[in-house]
């Protein structure tokens, strides 16, 4: 079979599913919608598998599928770049997407927007595939914006809830900030290299070193990388553009798993890895990446500790893990970052879907203070969530261990400015991660059964008052939670398998082998993973060695503390909260980022807008330009009506006059 057709099939099959479910949803019904979209994604997954083996056999592809247009010497094209990095992303995206599609059948079964939901997630899969398969910046940007759009639509999926509308608006606006930087970065690339094609840009990238930008005198390559990274900060929710991600949990849980944990938010990580030939040229940009990533990894983890909403805990843990990936990028360990991206996709999707399963069992109550002891009632959810949590905290032999430990080791080895700070952050982060993960685990699955009693009120954002009737909340007194249907548990089991195993089997080829080949470029003057590679003795050796290192003991301490605080002495956290109420308030308010944004940015831009409106719009534009030009236009129009009298002789006269003007003019000229 022609490989090109197969490449095309991967994004187009989900697109076809999305169109079928979206435009003909009424005609094909609920079952039709999920069959069509699941078939589309399954086809994409199988095709990705075939392509994976083809790439493993040493083939790759970089070519144009369609030239959209050519302007000013720049080609605007749709093209595919199929190399190991792409194909790995394709597999992750299609696999997680397939799991989420199946899971959705159970999770959304009572929702009136069933077909719409399937259409959106298939559309998302298409967009994400276009993003990762692109061989040029234009298509990258298309995919980038398209996933953002679908994310916006899905966060606001329950569009009758004001909080959902607020959240999706927020996600959209914050991403605009990132995208603005991203677009400027692409613009700089196009302006200085004259092409949008990755390969061509990378080929001339070394010539950009030392070039200074006009007017500002900035170092060009640093400016490009920082701007591109600002795009990644928006999409991958890095401080200070992270504020949208926790709120995005307003969307249905399958979305949180697919878009806001496993795939879309990792687009920024993928993009930076893809651009490694550019980032390698600027140490300043790499330090910037490193510091932002480290800050996100640690400080977002802290916030996870004080959350009571089960999905928000997982959301903050996602932020923190994205920080880890970014740190890996910063220390030139791109393959470790991408490796963590992959393992994280599996275990975080698993944790989210597990949380969703708990939410189904709890009849859409998300407050952990109302749970406890669910282990008995939801055994499959319990086991799979435990496995996911162990993977997340980096317990040896689990997939998360391999990826996270590699990142930490790479930070140890790094010599970049900011590496010391990053080291502290990632090490402390391990403890924090273990603590909040197992806090959640113990609160939900162990201990006293707190459901069916008087509710703890939700956060302000989760006030029940405006939820529609389909989402009745919480269990009635005496009611017991129940295990979810098979469409929910099967994806959990299928995701649990890679969450546990994938790291063990893939670390060697991905980090130290030839898997990525030339897809990822590390400059000679950067340590990257080379030091780690020298010490690597195989996955078993690494895990055994891992038992003796600081991260493991920090993680163990985190688990132990969580157990002690929430199982043994639940009075301690409350006491701490009282003692350190200032810190607790700070964390509760998420470091006041939202307040700051609201007052400074939202308030500031409103004031600016009002100012412009008063002076610029009403004064200059309305008064002078609009009304002034409208008067001129009206006057000319009236004049032409005067000439257009309907009298034949006047028409003929106009023609003759025109002729005479032309004659006299060109004769004087000639």
């Amino acid at each position: 079979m022609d490989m090109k057709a197969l490449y095309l099939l991967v994004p187009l099959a989900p697109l076809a599913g999305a169109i079928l479910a979206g435009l003909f949803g009424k005609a094909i019904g609920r079952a039709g919608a999920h069959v069509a979209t699941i078939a589309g994604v399954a086809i994409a997954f199988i095709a990705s598998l075939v392509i994976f083996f083809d790439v493993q056999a040493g083939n790759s592809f970089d070519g144009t599928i369609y030239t959209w247009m050519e302007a000013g010497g720049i080609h605007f094209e749709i093209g595919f770049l199929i190399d190991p990095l792409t194909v790995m992303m394709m597999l992750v995206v299609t696999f997680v997407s397939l799991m989420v599609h199946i899971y959705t059948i159970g999770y959304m079964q009572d929702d009136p927007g069933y077909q719409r939901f399937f259409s959106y997630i298939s559309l998302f899969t298409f967009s994400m595939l276009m993003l990762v398969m692109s061989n040029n910046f234009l298509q990258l940007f298309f995919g980038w914006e398209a996933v953002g759009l679908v994310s916006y639509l899905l966060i606001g999926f329950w569009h009758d809830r004001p909080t959902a509308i607020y959240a999706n608006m927020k996600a959209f606006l914050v991403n605009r900030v990132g995208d603005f930087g991203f677009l400027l970065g692409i613009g700089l690339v196009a302006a200085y290299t004259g092409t949008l094609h990755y390969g061509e840009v990378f080929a001339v990238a070394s010539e950009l070193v030392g070039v200074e930008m006009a007017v500002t005198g900035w170092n060009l390559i640093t400016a490009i990388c920082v701007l591109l990274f600002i795009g990644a900060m928006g999409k991958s929710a890095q401080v200070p553009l992270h504020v949208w991600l926790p709120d995005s949990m307003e969307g249905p849980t399958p979305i949180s798993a697919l878009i806001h944990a496993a795939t879309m938010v990792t687009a920024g990580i993928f993009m930076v890895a893809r651009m490694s030939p550019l980032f390698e040229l600027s140490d300043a940009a790499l330090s910037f990446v490193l510091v932002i990533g480290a800050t996100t990894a640690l400080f977002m983890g802290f916030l996870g500790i004080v959350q009571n909403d089960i999905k928000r805990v997982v959301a903050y843990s996602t932020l923190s893990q994205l920080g880890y990936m970014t740190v890996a990028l910063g220390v030139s360990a791109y393959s470790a970052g991408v490796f963590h991206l992959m393992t994280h996709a599996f275990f975080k999707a698993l944790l989210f879907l597990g949380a969703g399963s708990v939410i189904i069992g709890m009849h859409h109550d998300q407050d952990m203070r109302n749970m406890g002891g669910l282990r008995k009632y939801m055994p499959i959810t319990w086991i799979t969530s435990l496995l996911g949590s162990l993977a997340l905290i980096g317990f040896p032999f689990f997939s998360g261990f391999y990826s996270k430990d590699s990142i930490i080791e790479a930070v140890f080895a790094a010599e970049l400015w900011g590496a010391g700070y990053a080291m502290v952050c990632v090490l402390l982060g391990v403890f924090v991660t273990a603590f909040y993960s197992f806090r959640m685990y113990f609160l939900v699955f162990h201990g006293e059964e707190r459901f069916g009693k008087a509710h703890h009120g939700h956060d302000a954002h989760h006030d029940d008052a405006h939820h529609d009737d389909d989402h009745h909340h919480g269990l009635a007194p005496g009611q017991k939670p129940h295990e979810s249907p098979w469409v929910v548990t099967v994806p959990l089991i299928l995701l649990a398998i890679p969450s546990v195993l994938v790291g063990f089997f893939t670390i060697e080829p991905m980090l130290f082998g030839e898997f990525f080949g030339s897809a990822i470029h590390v400059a000679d003057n950067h340590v990257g993973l080379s030091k780690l590679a020298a010490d690597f003795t195989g996955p078993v050796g690494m895990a055994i060695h891992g038992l003796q290192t600081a991260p493991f003991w920090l993680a163990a301490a985190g688990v132990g503390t969580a157990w002690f605080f929430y199982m043994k002495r639940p009075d301690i956290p409350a006491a701490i909260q009282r003692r350190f109420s200032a810190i607790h308030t700070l964390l509760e308010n998420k470091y006041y980022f939202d307040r700051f944004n609201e007052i400074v940015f939202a308030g500031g831009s409103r004031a600016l807008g009002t100012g412009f409106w008063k002076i610029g719009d009403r004064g200059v534009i309305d008064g002078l330009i609009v009304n002034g030009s409208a008067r001129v236009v009206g006057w000319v129009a009236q004049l032409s009506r005067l000439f257009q009298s309907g009298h034949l002789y006047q028409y003929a006269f106009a023609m003759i006059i025109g002729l005479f003007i032309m004659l006299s003019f060109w004769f004087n000229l000639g």
Partner: protein
Amino acid sequence: MNFVVPDFYPAAAEIFVAVMALVIMLASTFARRIATALAYYLTQATLIVAAVVTVATMDGQVMLTFSNMFVSDLMGDFLKLLIYFSVAIALLYGRGYLADRSMDRPEYYLLTLLMTLGMMVMVTSNHLLTLYIGLEMMSLSLYAMVAFDRESARSTEAAMKYFVLGALASGLLLYGMSMLYGATGSMEFSGIAQAIYHQSANSTVLVFGLVFVMAGLAFKLGVVPFHMWVPDVYQGAPTAVTLMIASAPKLAAFAMAMRLLVYGLFEIAEHWQSMLMFLAVLSIVLGNIAAIAQTNIKRMLAYSGIAHMGFVLLGLLSGVVDGDRHFALNAYSSAMFYAVAYVMMSLASFGMIILLSRAGFEAENIDDFKGLNQRSSWFALMMLIIMFSMAGVPFFIGFFAKLSVLQAVVAAGYIWLAVLAVVMSLIGAFYYLRVVKVMYFDAPEDSAPIHAPADVKVMLSVNGLAIAVLGLLPQGLMSLCAYALIASL
């Protein structure tokens, strides 16, 4: 004198259409009862077969025949194919309209075919006289078609104006042609070009002739100040005929400009380029501004057409810069692309007017489009696409047409001209968007459901979607335009 039998092969399509016109005339005389239907289907079949013949005889070579009065080349073939298509579509849209007003007599189709033949001759002319004959053949048919509704005073008046002004323009054109002949001693385009090249032409007489020829050309294109007939005729003629005037003849006029100016008078491009600039600027300014004041949508589209033709001229005038001809291909193909795009949009927009009209009712005021979204959201969407495309909103075909013309203008160094064109388009966007506004935001005055034959509905949808799809994928058509020209430049 020896009589050499000319080579008929390159003119196979023209000969076929001419023969079929005679056949239809005879057939409709004898088959009285089914004459109209017969004439309609025969005409459509003729157009299809003519397309097949044109494709079959097309071989990329430049072929001259009939003592070099006739040329067959890629540009001609390409334009002829487009002409068949647009005439066929215009007939399809207009058939029901004519039937409702009992104007569907066989003569109408006969005239259509003769008009088509006239355009074909114009497109393939290699000689001033052939060009003139083709032009007159087309124009005479159109005069008759405008007056086809004999009972309507407005139609008759429009036809009269069209005829008298057309005769005046013809006179100017003929006079100019005689000057060109006097100056160069040749009526063949290549002969004229050679005479100028060898500087054996009297330049005063030449430029004098050029001005007159330009006046005739400007009349056919309908550009300011030779545009006065356009709004009156567009409004006065039955909509089906307006549709005909506003589509294929624009392609023929473009071919006329190419043959006359580029093939014949390329050596004095500096002269005619500045004349075109004069015409283009006036057209774009006046067309866009005057359209704002219109309440009749046919009149509005007439002024919009004047502005669009100004844009086509912008492409034509950017070919030669300080004697440098490197930009010529880009510039002329952008003009051609624009003309093709305009014809597509023009067909669709007048098609929409016909769709909304019915027996005893003309949907010719902008108010008749009020609330179209509530009556038929699909066709409101089609009209939205057409209007957006005409306004030059990305990403519809009209946007790329404007973009490519503006690129040519900028490449030629006329930045001010490009800025003016953009500003005027911006002003022009107002009246296109007004139509969209009344369709979507006003309450319908007329709630009658839309009745139209299925073929019209399908064709109109295809037409509208083509405007959208070609806006997304314009590269193919653009390359085709360039390819059609490159062989004969």
